[in-house]
């Protein structure tokens, strides 16, 4: 069953916390992964791979660079999840 927007946000927050040690409450839709959450390009790949597993979605590398904010990632997962 596809995840709801709220489930994706909270799931991403847990993943970002696990990968980069960012408190889950800081992971908000308008936050930039790189500028606000200190998730660098390699950590971003870890986030993406974990999100792929959790939400049954494929996120190719070419699309990863378009995911600037948490909101971008949530929208991407919402529209691509299997």
């Amino acid at each position, binding site marked *: 069953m596809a995840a709801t927007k709220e489930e994706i946000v909270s799931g991403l927050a847990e993943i970002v916390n696990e990968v980069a040690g960012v408190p889950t409450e800081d992971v908000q839709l308008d936050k930039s992964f790189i500028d606000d959450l200190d998730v*660098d*390009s*390699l950590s*971003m*790949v870890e986030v*993406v*791979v974990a999100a792929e597993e959790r939400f049954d979605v494929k996120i190719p*590398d070419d699309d*990863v660079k378009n995911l600037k904010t948490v909101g971008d990632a949530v929208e991407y997962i919402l529209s691509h999840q299997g």
Partner: protein
Amino acid sequence: MTHAITPRRGAEHSRILGVGGYRPHRVVPNEELLQYIDSSDEWIRTRSGIATRHWAGPEETVTEMSVAAAGKAIAQAGIRPEQIGCVVVSTVSHFKQTPAVATEIADRIGASPAAAFDISAACAGFGYALNLADGMVRNGSAEHVLIIGVERLSDLTDIHDRSTAFLFGDGAGAAVIGPSDTPGIGPVVWGSDGAQAGVITQTQAWDAFKGEAGVGGPSKEATYPALTMEGQTVFRWAVWEMAKVAQQALDAAGITADQLDVFVPHQANMRITDAMIKALKLPAGVPVARDIAETGNTSAASIPLAIERMLASGEAKSGDTALLIGFGAGLVYAAAVVVLP
């Protein structure tokens, strides 16, 4: 009429009898690179785990570094050079492609008339050479095989590229493979994925320099090639695809992760190593090679250099069961469980 041909037979088993390394004298700290790239010591350490690397001087040629590393490996193996039946050199940074540098090295160490040739398997070169050597020892092609990974990647580094200038280093690592009463080299799991040939590559081919009027004519305008890579794509492949390959090597050898004494991944990037440990679910107590901090990424040389350091520091000891995995430009990979010399 068909006559019965006498087949050749080799040793029942093979193992690594000795390893040796050579690190160039000049140590280049991150600070020294900041005159070329907009970066910081902290940024480089965070992204790669690298604090210093060794860059070879003019006298520290591919041949000289190899001869030095080979001498140590032969000494540890306790054999005479003339017992070496084949010399295999893996390198992507020896710029005279003919003749193979392996023949000169074989001659210099006193192994002539051993068979000698070079292979190009980038950062998987040590594992590729190990697989060849294991086969040769067990089919009798050679009693002992000297394998060498050697690179002068500083010659292929664009020091103005802030994403790679800090990454690469120079050095040589050698190992002697020979007969053994017990299995010392597990099945090598190797392969390639040429569909991703472009994700780590030199920026252009050498024939970009061929003269307008043909070979031997004045060179065309061309920018000297450097190594370039797509960091995120390489990272994803190197961690999650290579964790599967590492697991296959464990399974093929009949070894479980908790039976491992040491893990020696190619020293590509500390972040890759850390993520691979997680993906592999490697038990917390297993020592992991982290030579990259002082040596940078030396491609084919990195695994034997890392083994040598771990044996010297006592982090690993003779007889330990080690998982090795190399992966890089090609893309190519090779993994195996081995017993350390």
